[in-house]
Structures are given as structure tokens and as C-alpha cells.
């Protein structure tokens, strides 16, 4: 009813200072929660992307193979030494979570780049790979398939264009982001199937054809530890199960950072829950007091025939307006604060090796809406119970200020 809604609105205006304090408190609460949730999700997503892009925990290669360890990822250097593609699978090692086999052939006169360029042709299994596809920065809008190649960031060929490799046509399916690792940036990546199909076309130059091109052979495996497993456990298990292999581990400080950040985010989550809980308590205490103060008016409304839903509705509308406005204000404030500190935050995170990417807009909008709705809901709940109790009292008791 318009008059009751009007009353609710007017009532807020009667105690301006108190209404403003309530709105401010809710704004701070919902602002912190919105900002916390958005940052947390963004950092979490960035971290998930960042760490999966960081590649593997360790690498299994033939003894004598060269390897390249950088902060960002482990890479296998091309070599003529190979392992059987199924050695790890057969060994069934519990401490190994995921294993991505790779075939690498360094070739000359491939038709890519200038004549004498050495090109690394890297074969991977799309289904098992976790070190190449996460780096995809742009790709065609379809599934990756046989005959497709993915280019390292160092090669500038448009997506979808045709690329001849040893005279065979391939389609440029995607491009990787910068990794800072030369072999990776110059690499041409394709499925095992595509790489093996090239075997016949690769000319033999005195030496034999790269061994990795043979079906069933791989240059090495990139390994991610099973949850809870240590690198030492995995190393022992692999070395005892796979003859002629060596295990190379990456930089262990990164997993430490990851665990630290996770703990921090969980702390923020706990803080957010507490924040909302205390906001709910505060709003209901405040509205109990407001309703006590307004008993004579509520009694009067009841005396002239207001039904209890009308009385409760009026109080709830008043609360929802206050907390809803607080929620909107809080979200606005949150957006401003995030804008303000964006630079230093991004700088800090990238410094510790986590590339920062903001949450996408639809999800951020969903968080904003959720924060506002939650704030309004807290208002509705906080006002409902005391209003409902008051509305059940005898009108006369209320009018006299009792009840």
C-alpha cells in the first residue's frame, strides 16, 4: 500500500542520524563482503590459471637428456633419447597425479621460418596435457583436431591460416602466451597423431630421423604430484619403477606461495561470514529498539484497523530500504576502492608470480547483486521478528507503550 510505504520512508527520515549510521554500517559490511568476494574469486581464478600455467611439479626424461628449468615451467629439451609412452601408466605410481607425455623433435628445413631455422615440433596429447593448453591466448572457435598446430608466442602467423610443414598443410589453431622460455616461444605444437604423420616427410640428414617421431615413444613426461604427495616420494617411486629415467623437479617455492595465498583467502572468507553475521545481529538489535520506540504508533495503526501483515510489512519495508541502500552504497564503494588499489594489487601479485586477472563482468555483477540482496535480506529478517512480535500484542498495550 502506497501510504504504508510512504510511512516507512518517512520514518527513516525522522531519525536522520540514526538512519545514516545504519546505512553506513550496512554499506561498510556489504562493501567489505563484496570487495572481499570479488578479490578472492579473482585471485583464486588467477592463481588457478597461473599455477596450472606454471606447468608441472616434475619431469621424467631419459637419463642423459637435457632439461630446462625456469621459474615458470619445466620444459623438455629435444633429444634423441626416448622413453616408452606407457612406462608411467604401467607403473601405476600413487604419488603421480597427472602425467603429460611429450614428443619433441628439433628439425631443420621444415618450411617454417627461414631455411636454416631450427624448429621444435612438440607433440602432446590434448586429453592429458596440462602445460600447453593453459597457455593458449587465442584460438579458433572449434575443437582442436588432427592437422592443427598451436604456435608459440614467438611466431607471428594469423589464426586459421595454412602452414606448410615439410610440404604438408596444417591449420594454425591457436597461439600461446609469452612464457619467457625460448624453446616454448619458438615451438610448434601439435597432437601426437599430427606429429607422427610427419615422420615420413622429415628428411634424414645423415643422422637418423628424430626418435620421438616413432609411435609409442616419447621424449619425456611432465608430472603433477598427487594431492598430498611429496616430490621425494614421487621421485623414488618413479626411479625404481622406470629404468633408464631421471627425474627433474621444478622450483618448490611456488607451491609454498600457493599454500600461503590459499590460507589467506580462507581467512578472508571467515571474516566475511563473521561480518555478515554481526551485521545481521546489529540490524535486528537496532530494529528491536526502533520498534520498541514506535510501539504507540504501531498500536495506533492496529487500533484503526491495520492487519498484522500491514504493520510488519511497513517495518520490513523501512528496514529493507535502509539496508538495501546500504548494500548499493557498499558495492559502489567497493568498486571505487578496487579501482583505486588496482595497480598496487596487480603489481604485488605479479611480483609473487601470480598474474592477476579481474573476475569477468557478469560474475562481478552477480556478486554485487548478491551483496545487495543479502544486505536487504538481513534488513528484512532483522526487522521481521520484532515487528511480528509487536504486531501480535493488544493494540491498547502498544498504544500505552507496553508490550
Amino acid at each position, binding site marked *: 500500500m502506497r501510504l504504508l510505504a510512504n510511512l516507512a520512508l518517512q520514518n527513516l527520515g525522522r531519525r536522520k542520524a540514526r538512519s545514516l549510521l545504519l546505512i553506513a554500517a550496512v554499506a561498510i559490511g556489504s562493501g567489505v563482503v563484496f570487495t572481499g568476494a570479488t578479490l578472492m574469486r579473482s585471485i583464486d581464478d588467477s592463481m588457478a590459471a597461473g599455477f596450472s600455467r606454471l606447468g608441472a611439479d616434475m619431469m621424467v626424461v631419459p637419463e642423459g637428456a637435457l632439461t630446462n628449468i625456469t621459474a615458470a615451467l619445466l620444459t623438455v629439451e629435444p633429444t634423441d633419447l626416448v622413453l616408452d609412452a606407457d612406462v608411467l601408466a604401467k607403473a601405476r605410481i600413487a604419488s603421480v597425479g597427472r602425467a603429460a607425455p611429450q614428443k619433441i623433435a628439433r628439425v631443420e628445413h621444415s618450411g617454417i621460418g627461414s631455411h636454416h631455422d631450427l624448429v621444435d615440433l612438440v607433440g602432446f596429447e590434448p586429453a592429458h596435457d596440462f602445460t600447453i593448453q593453459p597457455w593458449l591466448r587465442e584460438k579458433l572457435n572449434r575443437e582442436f583436431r588432427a592437422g592443427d598446430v598451436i604456435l608459440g608466442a614467438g611466431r607471428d602467423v594469423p589464426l586459421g591460416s595454412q602452414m606448410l610443414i615439410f610440404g604438408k598443410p596444417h591449420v594454425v589453431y591457436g597461439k600461446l602466451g609469452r612464457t619467457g622460455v625460448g624453446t616454448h616461444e619458438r615451438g610448434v605444437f601439435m597432437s601426437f597423431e599430427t606429429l607422427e604423420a610427419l615422420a615420413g616427410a622429415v628428411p634424414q640428414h645423415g643422422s637418423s630421423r628424430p626418435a620421438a617421431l616413432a609411435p609409442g615413444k616419447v621424449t619425456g613426461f611432465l608430472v603433477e604430484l598427487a594431492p598430498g604427495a611429496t616430490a621425494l616420494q614421487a621421485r623414488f617411486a618413479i626411479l625404481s619403477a622406470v629404468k633408464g629415467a631421471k627425474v627433474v623437479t621444478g622450483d618448490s617455492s611456488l607451491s609454498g606461495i600457493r599454500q600461503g595465498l590459499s590460507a589467506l583467502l580462507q581467512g578472508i572468507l571467515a571474516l566475511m561470514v563473521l561480518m555478515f553475521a554481526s551485521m545481521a545481529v546489529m540490524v535486528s538489535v537496532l530494529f528491536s529498539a526502533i520498534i520498541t520506540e514506535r510501539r504507540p504508533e504501531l498500536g495506533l495503526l492496529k487500533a484503526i*484497523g491495520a492487519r498484522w501483515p500491514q504493520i510488519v510489512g511497513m517495518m520490513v519495508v523501512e528496514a529493507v530500504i535502509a539496508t538495501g541502500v546500504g548494500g548499493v552504497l557498499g558495492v559502489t564503494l567497493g568498486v571505487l576502492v578496487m579501482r583505486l588499489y588496482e595497480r598496487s594489487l596487480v603489481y604485488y601479485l605479479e611480483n609473487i608470480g601470480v598474474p592477476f586477472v579481474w573476475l569477468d563482468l557478469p560474475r562481478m555483477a552477480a556478486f554485487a547483486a548478491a551483496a545487495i540482496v543479502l544486505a536487504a535480506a538481513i534488513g528484512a529478517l532483522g526487522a521481521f521478528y520484532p515487528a511480528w512480535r509487536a504486531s501480535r500484542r*493488544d493494540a491498547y498495550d502498544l498504544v500505552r507503550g507496553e508490550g
Partner: protein
Amino acid sequence: MLVCRQVSKSYRTERGVVTAVAGIDLDVPAGRFAAVIGRSGSGKSTLMAMIGGLSRPSAGSVEVDGTDVWHLSDNALAAFRNEKVGYVFQFASLLPTLRLIDNVALPAMLGRRQGASGTYARAAALLERMGLGGYLDAYPAEISAGEQRRAAIARALINDPALLLADEPTSDLDEQTEIEIMDVLRTVNREVGTTLVLVTHNLALAEQAQQIVHIANGAIVA
């Protein structure tokens, strides 16, 4: 029209049970003007509240226009207060954040029996009749106590109640204003035929009533 049978009310307080009204029998025929008199604390307001559907009796029954008031459901009781009874309180009872016209229209809007435009026209006419035609858009704080009381009477009349209950409506007003307000109430009683039950400590006023109910210690004295 109004029938009370052994209606009682006791309050549980820290000092024990206080009996405010102790078994009152009362009959007021339709259209009559009845005055309730008695000393302060004798239970007059409590009786009025029980008649008007504002305070549930501890025992006994109240019947208005054939309806057993305290056996109504919550919603029906709200409708009873809204439609059957006009209540004028002892104190200022307008909502301070609403204009006079809104205050007067409010009971009709709560019941929502007729459209808003009709209601507001009626509210304006009532205020006019109370001599407040120039204050439709004023807020209660902007007019005098006597004018506020007249607006409260207009509000009590907006739904054409069968029963008008006025609990010492003039106790805090000056004599001249008191006479004006009494005139208004008695005019409504005489011209519209609304049954009027008036609590007053002014014996001269009470003597103009067709029926005098004298209460002491929560009971009727002859």
C-alpha cells in the same frame, strides 16, 4: 447495539494481579449517547479498549452490532476495528509524518474498500466539516492540539462507524476547545445516528448524555 457481559480485565504486574475492570454489564442501544464517568484509575479506559477491540478481556464478552467481538479471528477483528468503530484517544494520536488528509484517509486506505480518489474526497469533506478545510496538506505539528483532536475525530469517522468511542478526548484542552469538540461529537451522534460512548470527568457534559455509566474500582455503581 453495545452489550457487555461480565467483562473483566486484570493485569499481571510485579506487585501481583491488578484488576482494572471487574465484571461489568453494560447495554447501550443504537444511536444513543452514553457518558462514562469515574475517578482516575477506575478502569474507564480499560473498558473502552475492550469495547473497541483494542484490549482482550480476561473474562466476559463484548457484543457490538450483534458481533461477539472477542471471538473474531485476527483478520475479522482488524476489520471490526477498521469499519465498525471510530476511536478517539485521550492524547494526540495522529501520525506525525503524514499530512492531515493522509491521516484521515488512512483507515479507509487500510481497509481499501473504495478507491483512493473517493476516499480522499471524503477525507477532505470531513476535515472541512471539522473546520480544518484550510489544513489538508498540513502536518500535525503545524496545527494546535485542539485542531489535532478534531482531525483525529475526522479520522474516526472516515469509515462511517456504527460506534464512536471517545476516551476523555478533551482532557488536555482548554475549555473553549472542549466545548467545540463536544459539539462536534454530539452533532455526529444526533445527525448521523452514530452511537457515542464518551468518557469524561466533566459532570456538566455527562449530564447532557442519555445514559450515564458511573464506574468505581472497575465496577458500575448505581
